[in-house]
């Protein structure tokens, strides 16, 4: 009887992802190269009473992005009862909005900042009859190690990170008011190969306190978080030293949630490591890989906009974003969004008294982004979308977008991208269980990295999809006046099947343009691809 009861407590869930690709890619240095990849990920969660076991087996060989891997990527065991949680193995955490701890994973980029260690959470809530203002006290801790591979600049050496962090949260009025504090201590070590010196090691100690506040009052919600990153380089390329840097990060948001109008404003002021282009100790003092604050610009769903988005410099960037959702007109949804950012300082090369070339600060800003001069790396964009709901799931969306972004800048020149994009999307249920989805995007772009036609080019994107019961098929037609990877036209066909609801097979064949792929502020340049892709997703 006891064994039967024990067996009755065991449940499990799982998932499987298989991705296969075969074709050619456009390598920036080597040109057109054959490309094949195979990714197989199997996840399992086994629940027994208050214990959970999590496993993830991964075979990423050859990988599409980053390093190949085979084996158990994740394994953890968790005990969760009442308000106590204890976990050992692969652990992650998010404190506030991630200015000090946001150890997340972005699989499409092969970005992984999870720790191998332990985690503990406990919360105590006073009952309302014991205290009118319903206080609660939560304590969290995480400690572990990470071997971090930079996916943005793959030439950077591997960084070993050993971190421990503790967080406490005091809540009032049923957590409508939260005061949080955290402290992170981390030790990082980078090993490089340096000419005749062979392997050289750079070590850093980071102490990072932070505080945050969250309040919710009716339709208004506010959040504020501040952290200081106190870094001490005690060894640089095998030489003992003591170099201190005080980095800071500030983030705030304020939102109004009304029945016909929603408004969200966000502000960022990140100075984890502000330095001139020619400064020593580049990147040794950068933000920890386990920190990942908000980017403060919109996450678009249109391909033309996501392909050339802004890459955030978390070490030195300030800016804001405002978004409004208007639903006061029946059957219409209007979305307005604008964002802007820049660096804190602008720099220019000049000769010092000894005749050496040095970077001088030519301008600075402390609070709002500055647009006077490309050397501030200014970025701004404005977006407007109108959606009309025809009933059922039929809709029409029209949008317009304008963006200006300085990619790189020196004393004499700058790489600038400016674009104006218009487009729309329509979905129409032709008959029950069948639907048509059409999306069109037209983009005028000015890109100083594209030499032809005075840097002006046009991009067109048309997507057609028809769905019948569990089958969807269609095509993507991508065109540019600019020659990329020896072509102007990228056609692609796709088909997907849903099998029994739990399984989806997606196959696509054709050419895809390259561009930026960004997740959580981590951006990677995706090269153009031409060939076959197959993805099988299963939930068990």
């Amino acid at each position, binding site marked *: 009887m006891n064994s039967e009861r024990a067996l009755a407590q*065991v449940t499990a869930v799982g998932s499987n992802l298989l991705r296969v690709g075969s074709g050619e890619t456009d390598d920036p240095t080597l040109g057109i190269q054959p490309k094949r990849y195979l990714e197989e990920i199997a996840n399992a969660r086994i629940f027994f009473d208050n214990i959970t076991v999590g496993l993830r087996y991964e075979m990423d060989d050859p990988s599409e992005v980053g390093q190949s891997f085979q084996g158990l990527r994740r394994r953890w065991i968790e005990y969760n009862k009442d308000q106590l949680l204890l976990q050992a193995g692969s652990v992650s955490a998010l404190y506030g909005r991630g200015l000090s701890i946001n150890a997340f994973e972005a699989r499409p980029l092969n970005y992984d900042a999870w720790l191998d260690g332990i985690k503990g959470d406990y919360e105590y809530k006073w009952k309302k009859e014991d205290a009118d203002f319903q206080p609660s006290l939560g304590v969290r801790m995480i400690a572990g190690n990470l071997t971090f591979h930079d996916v943005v600049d793959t030439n950077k050496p591997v960084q070993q990170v050993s971190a421990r962090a503790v967080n406490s949260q005091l809540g009032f009025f049923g957590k409508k008011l939260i005061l949080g504090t955290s402290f992170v201590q981390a030790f990082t070590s980078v090993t490089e190969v340096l000419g005749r010196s062979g392997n050289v090691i750079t070590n850093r100690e980071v102490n990072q306190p932070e505080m945050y506040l969250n309040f919710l009052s009716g*339709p208004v919600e506010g959040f504020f978080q501040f952290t200081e990153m106190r870094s001490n380089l005690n060894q640089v390329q095998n030489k003992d030293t003591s170099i201190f840097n005080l980095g800071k990060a500030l983030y705030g948001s304020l939102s109004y*949630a009304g029945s016909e109008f929603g408004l969200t404003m966000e502000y960022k002021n990140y100075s984890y490591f502000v330095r001139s282009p020619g400064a020593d100790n580049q990147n040794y003092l950068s933000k920890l890989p386990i920190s990942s604050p908000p980017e403060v610009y919109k996450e678009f769903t249109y391909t033309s906009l996501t392909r050339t988005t802004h890459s955030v410099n978390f070490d030195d960037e300030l800016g804001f974003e405002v978004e409004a959702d*208007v639903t006061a007109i029946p059957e219409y949804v209007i979305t307005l969004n604008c964002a802007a950012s820049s660096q804190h300082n602008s720099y220019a090369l000049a000769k010092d008294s000894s005749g050496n070339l040095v970077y001088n600060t030519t301008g600075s800003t402390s609070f709002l982004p500055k647009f006077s001069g490309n050397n501030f790396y200014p970025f701004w964009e404005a977006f407007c979308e109108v959606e009309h709901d025809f009933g059922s799931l*039929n809709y029409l969306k029209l949008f317009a977008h304008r963006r200006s972004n300085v990619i790189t800048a020196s004393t004499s020149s700058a790489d600038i991208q400016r674009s104006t994009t218009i487009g729309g999307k329509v979905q129409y249920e032709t008959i029950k269980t069948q639907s048509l989805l059409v999306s069109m995007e037209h983009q005028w772009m000015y890109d100083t990295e594209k030499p032809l036609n005075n840097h002006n080019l046009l991009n067109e994107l048309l997507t057609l999809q028809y769905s019948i019961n569990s089958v969807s098929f269609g095509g993507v037609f991508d065109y540019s006046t600019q020659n990329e990877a020896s072509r102007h036209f990228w056609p692609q066909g796709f088909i997907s099947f849903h099998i029994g609801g739990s399984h989806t097979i997606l196959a696509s064949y054709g050419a895809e343009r390259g561009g930026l792929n960004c997740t959580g502020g981590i951006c990677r340049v995706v090269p153009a691809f031409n060939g076959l892709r197959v993805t099988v*997703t299963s939930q068990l």
Partner: protein
Amino acid sequence: MKKFITVIFLTTCFFSAKVFAAADSVKVIESMNFSVTDVSGDETNFKNFLGKGPLLVNFWALWCEPCKQEMKAFIALSEKLKEKGVAMVSINEDMVKSIAKVRAWVKSQGIMQPMLVDPDGNISRDHFSMESLPYSLLLKPDGSVYKRHVGFTAGDEVKIEKELDDLVQELSEKK
């Protein structure tokens, strides 16, 4: 050889666990006993959404257009079948990048159904092993999964309504 043994071990563990659960005639919802927070900051336990009738669970994000279409379809279904005990709960998967906008968007759209937030992916990843969006579940009153749906295109709501009707009939026959 080591990798082969690891794969066999994992597969055996997984399917053994499934067999234990399948052989048992009494489904227990202990795995559905976990704390959640809604978009208004209120905390509750996920099991509080169970026990009354079929539950539609829709995972979504602001950047996932098909997810928002699925949520719209689920809202219509849950209102149409409310008297048969059908309910729904949506779980937002936006990360720190967009989490500040979620509440304003939800309220401006007039969504009144329960809306949970999952900015660190704890619910979707650790409790439901979600692989990708769109993803939705149809849960029985005891928390066991009746149907899963990976992906969503307009027209899928017809099949989901049929599944709901079948489940409602199955539950009423058991009574």
